[in-house]
Structure formats: structure tokens, C-alpha cells
């Protein structure tokens, strides 16, 4: 099984996220000093030392911070899927993740909507955490 869509260039700092996803766990980072959670970007833990930062497993629930319904695809690999929803989810722990919101009711998607993670195994090597309306 291969993936015809762009795949993440996984690096040493993101590897725990993608490894966790393969194991069915949504991993985020938490600053031990401030208690704030974030993902990859250090923007939300200003001044934190590397040593303060730990990977933790998120509950996998959150709300739609913002979204867009894509009618023009991001390249040929997405052409057959339009319209599709790209979402910025704010997890209950506070971290933000850009992903897809997979739903049969695109018109009902709204900011503040409760969503939950599911794990889409797109290839043997890659599992992508995506979201669906919380059920």
C-alpha cells in the first residue's frame, strides 16, 4: 500500500508524533514549566528550555478553531476529493493541529464544533491523525 498524496518529511523533532500515530496515539508536546501544550512549533512555549518539554498523549478531542472547504484541490493528488475540509483543531489540551475533518455533512462544519481524532492508515509506513465530528 502506497500513498499518492504528499507525505510529511518526518524529522527528529516530529518523529514521536508520527510514530505515535502509527500506534494509534495522538502525541503532542507539553512544556513542564508553563504547562502549555503545543505541537512542533515552539511558539506556544516561549522561553522554555528543551529539557522542560515532554511528549504526552492527548485525549484526541477538541474543537474546530477554524476551517476551510477546499473546492480547488492542493494539486492533482487531491482532485478526486473536492470539496474536502481542512481544519485547524484546537485540542482540549490547547495544542493546534492542521488536519482534515472527515464528515458526510460539510455544510454543518462550524467553528466551535466538537471533534475527535481517528487514525487513517494511508500506507504501510504512514498513519495520519484526522478528525471527525465527536459522536
Amino acid at each position, binding site marked *: 500500500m502506497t500513498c499518492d*498524496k*504528499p507525505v510529511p518529511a518526518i524529522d527528529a523533532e516530529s518523529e514521536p508524533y508520527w510514530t505515535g500515530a502509527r500506534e494509534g496515539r495522538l502525541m503532542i508536546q507539553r512544556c513542564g514549566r508553563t504547562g502549555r501544550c503545543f505541537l512542533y512549533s515552539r511558539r*506556544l512555549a516561549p522561553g522554555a528550555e528543551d529539557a522542560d518539554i515532554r511528549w504526552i498523549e492527548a485525549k484526541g478531542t477538541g474543537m474546530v478553531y477554524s476551517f476551510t472547504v*477546499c*473546492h480547488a484541490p*492542493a494539486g492533482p493528488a487531491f482532485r478526486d476529493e473536492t470539496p474536502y475540509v481542512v481544519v*485547524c483543531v484546537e485540542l482540549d489540551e490547547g495544542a*493546534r493541529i492542521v*488536519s482534515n475533518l472527515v464528515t458526510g455533512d460539510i455544510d454543518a462544519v462550524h*467553528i466551535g464544533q466538537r471533534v475527535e481524532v481517528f487514525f487513517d492508515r494511508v500506507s504501510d509506513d504512514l498513519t495520519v491523525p484526522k478528525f471527525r465530528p465527536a459522536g
Partner: protein
Amino acid sequence: MSRSPVIVGVADAPTHERGRALPGATVLSIQRDAANEALAQAGLTMRDVDGLAVAGMWGMPGPGAMQPVLLTEYLGLEWPRYLDGTNVGGAAFVLHAGRAAEAIRSGQADVVLIVYGSLQKSQAARALGGRPAMFSNQWDIPAGLPLPVGAYAMAAQRHAHVYGSTRETLAEIAVATRAWAALNPAAAFREPMTVDDVLDARMIASPLGRYDCCLVTDGGGAVVMTTEERTRDLRTPPVHVLGHGASASHASIAHMPDMAKLEVAEQSSRAAYAMAGRGPAEIDLAMLYDSFTITVLMTLEALGLCGYGEGKEFVRGGRTGPGGAFPVNTNGGGLSYCHPGMYGLFTIIEACHQLWGIAGERQAEGVRTAICHGTGGVLSSGATLILSTENG
């Protein structure tokens, strides 16, 4: 006063057929031609140039990674004393002008040339996908976020949620900008357009439709800066650089601190206003990078030209169009005039046209002080300039 930084020449590259470069143009020749035209307007030549600033997407990977070096060679500059290749996206040239102002003030350079060129339309180089899924973009790209439009769309959605802006609000901006373009013979799209035309157009990434998005054109331009003292011998009256500022916040839209507020523009403009000793109330013209209609709405608010959430009233009923209370993007903007990919330089070019009073049919009344603001990436970076016919 004597080394006070000023702009003395500007030029943009001619295009035809909806923004295509003239036959025979290369990405380097359009920059050279614009530079020569801007220098000639001032009464200077390439031999006077001792500082160079450039950014673009051309020549990469390859010599484009060192654009100031390649252009030094191509333009035949002799030992430039000042070089700037800072690339913060479309805001770059506004940032370049601010830094050039300080280089001129300090004596590091006497005549700085800022140039830009792109053949993205002729070369069909633009696509919504295909960017590498690296660093903080390793989430956005696999999700199929069309870039940059999808990121701006998410900001628009958030702005609508927080402040009650609507698709009609955004359409007002597209319509006012097109009305300015109708008065600019150099604009690629000049046909009149209505709010309904914008609302009925093909949806790209909700809530942004076709006419909420900037054009894809070729193009290029040049700006020449020097000292106020030098202008005594030159052809053009000086446009004074009173203040500047720049900042950045994020690379992925996921990490924009508040998706409904363009805080990076608030930061860069605060610095520019403070340096200029001017405030939003003293601005007569705003030239804002309009990559998308939402960019204008959020920039107006962030620059303090209105309060957060007041943008929808500020733009209502053609207020920013010809004959309106507050002129914005009088050249027709990236939405209707040209958008070669990194548009920031054109905000400066048109501000100077207006300040010199040579904008022809689209000349706005009583423009003495203008603000230029460039936005780069996905609302990622910002650079502000405050320009005036008066010094101090």
C-alpha cells in the same frame, strides 16, 4: 537632515495580455529595465548605485539562492557597499526599504536600488500544491491545504466568526479595488465588477472565491532611494521615508497567534508610526498587500486605520474606492492590477505616484502621507513604511 532617506525613482515593468511580460523578457531583464527606468526618472544611472536589495522566487535551487550576487553581476554594479537579500515573502521589499533607509542614513550607501521580477504567469509556475511537507508544514501539506489561499481562508473564517465580517464585506474590497484598476491603464483587469459578481464566482477555499484572490501575472519593479541632500541635483521631488518596521510570527497558519487579528502588522506598524511621529489619523492613503480580500480587511484593522472588528464598516459602500472617504490600493492592487507573486514593492511604487501627484485619472485628493504595508507567507510576516512629501 542631509542624509535623511528619500525615494527618488520608481518604475514597474510593462505587461500585456492580462499580465504577461512583453516578448523577449527574462526574469533578469525585466528587473534591469525597471531599474533603468526608475534611475532615469530620478536623473541617476546604474553607475550611481552602491546598494542593492532584491528578493524573489527565481533561480532556485541554484544562483537564485544568492540573488544580490547574481544581480550585481547582471546589472554590472561596481563594488556595491550594501546588499540585502532578505526574503520574508511578499513583505520583503517593504522591509528592504526600511533597512535601506537606515543604510543611507548611516552613510553605508548613497544610492540603493530595490528590484523585483517574476515570470510566474508565462512560466505557469504557480500551483496550489507541490510545496514540500517540511517543518511546521508537515501537517498542512498532507491535509491538502491549498497554499497560500487555504490558510488565508481559515483566517477569513475565523475573522467572520469573531468579528462578524461576511462574504459581502470581502466582496466590497474586491469591487473597490477593481474600480481603481479601471482608472489604471497598466492594470491587467479593468472591467467593472459588482458585489454579486464576486459572490457568484467560483469558490476556491471557503469563504474565498475567485475574485477574493489576487491575480497570477508576470511583472517587476524598481525603487531608487538616496539622501535628501542628493535630491537637490535630481529631477524628482523627494518622498521621505519617515518610519518603518517589520516583524514575523509563524510559518504554518496553525501557529498564527490569533487567526482573527494580524498582530504582526500591528507590531510592524507600531514601530513605523513611532519612528515617523505620526499616527493612523494622519494617513491619507493606504497601500496594502492584497493577496486576498481578507488580507486588506485584517491589515486595515491591524494598522489602526480602524479598530478590530470595525473593518466591515470601514470598507462598506465603496469607502475605499474612487471618490470614497479613504483611498486604499489606488493602482488596483494585487487583486486587479498585477500580482507577480511577491507584490510588496508595488505598494511603494504606487504610493510614490500618488505622493508625487502623477497618478493620472486615479490620483486621489490631498495625499501627503501614505502607509505601505506588505504581508508575506500565510499572514506570516509584515513590513510597514510611512512615506510623506514632507520631512518631519
